[in-house]
């Protein structure tokens, strides 16, 4: 029993350090993502209605919805995956009758979808989510944009676990493509007609859009893996605590048994001695 406790405690510690690392990165990546999002918002505001005719800003030509599911590769992380799948089931119910095709991160999610018999279009197995970096996000975003442009899809959405705090991580579905331009009220708010654009709106937008999509994926991936580790840490902590309780209980039982054995032995000895003396 002590062994199990040591193992879960070690795993808890590993999860804690990894969690810290991913959390730091998730936090550090936020300013960049925010800046990019704000820039895009201002730029789209400057473009106005023209936007609606651009390929990434209007729904795709097809009917199907592509859903990117970000799950974990490994188990032992508490309710992380089951909560994700519960959210998925709810989402599926809301989108009943519509064609949905899946893109997957994480072995657990892959296995789940396969068992459910849902159509998996692509499984991103390598590099694993554990090694997430900006390049992986770039690659993924590009793949999704290609999918969106293929003409088979109407929209792309992402299901991942948003990391809110150490104890709160919420499975969330967010729209990814088409890109939502800035709302009309906001358009009125910043009057962008007097902004100098260098070299031109077109050139800027062409560069900014991919970055925007990449940072959104990057952020989703980082938050997902941060949540996974937060959840794993909690699970391991609970296991360690349970092991401590059980150890105390078992120790009581063990001591009682041991005492019983000693008493029995004593009785035997005393009995034997009595018998000898009686001879």
């Amino acid at each position: 029993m002590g062994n199990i406790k040591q193992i879960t405690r070690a795993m808890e510690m590993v999860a804690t350090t990894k969690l810290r690392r991913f959390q730091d990165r998730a936090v550090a990546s936020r300013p960049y993502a925010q800046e990019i999002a704000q820039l895009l918002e201002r730029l789209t505001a400057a473009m106005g209605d023209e936007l609606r005719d651009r390929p990434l800003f209007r729904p795709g030509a097809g009917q199907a919805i592509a859903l990117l599911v970000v799950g974990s590769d490994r188990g032992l992380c508490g309710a992380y995956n089951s909560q994700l799948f519960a959210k998925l089931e709810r989402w599926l119910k809301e989108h009943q009758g519509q064609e949905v095709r899946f893109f997957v991160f994480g072995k657990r999610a892959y296995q789940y979808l396969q068992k459910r018999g849902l159509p998996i279009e692509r499984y991103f197995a390598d590099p694993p989510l554990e090694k997430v970096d900006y390049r992986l996000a770039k690659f993924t975003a590009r793949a999704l944009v290609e999918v969106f442009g293929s003409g088979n899809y109407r929209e792309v959405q992402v299901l991942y676990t948003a990391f809110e705090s150490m104890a709160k991580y919420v499975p969330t579905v967010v729209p990814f493509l088409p890109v939502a331009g800035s709302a009309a009220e906001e358009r009125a708010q910043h009057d962008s007609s007097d902004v100098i654009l260098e070299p031109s709106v077109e050139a800027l937008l062409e560069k900014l859009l991919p970055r925007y999509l990449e940072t959104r994926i990057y952020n989703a991936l980082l938050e997902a893996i941060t949540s996974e580790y937060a959840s794993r840490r909690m699970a391991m902590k609970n296991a360690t605590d349970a092991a401590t309780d059980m150890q105390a209980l078992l120790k009581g039982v063990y001591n009682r048994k041991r005492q019983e054995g000693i008493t029995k032995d004593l009785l035997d000895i005393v009995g034997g001695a009595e018998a000898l003396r009686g001879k």
Partner: protein
Amino acid sequence: MAGALTLRVITPDKIVLDVQTSSVKIPGVDGLIGILPRHAHMVAAVDVGPLTYVEGGAEKGLFVSEGFAEVRNNTLRVVCEAGELPAEIDEKRAKEAEKRARERMGRPKSGGEPVDVLRAEAALRRALMRQHVLGLYARERVRS
């Protein structure tokens, strides 16, 4: 100081720089763009290259790669994929990247697949620019 400008360099990994400066030159896609305090609201695309700024009378610089710059309310935010101060540049890696890129461009075909010349060229440019920035501000490195 007579109207300072806040310069902030932001990458996906961290905020590289956040300083008060009196003038900045950024590598725009169509050439250098100089920015002084009280510049008009502007959004510009940033190319790979050295970004120079004046802090406390001394000219300093860092390497930036593709991104965007926005000046607004006396704050210049450079949002780019990579931003490295001279002390952070890995010279060995940059040299290796240069060699790799040159080799790739020298070969017409690698294993039947056409070489992505644009990508190799971009990699080469980044490698050269990193070394260029190092050369420009090597003194700073020795000092720190």
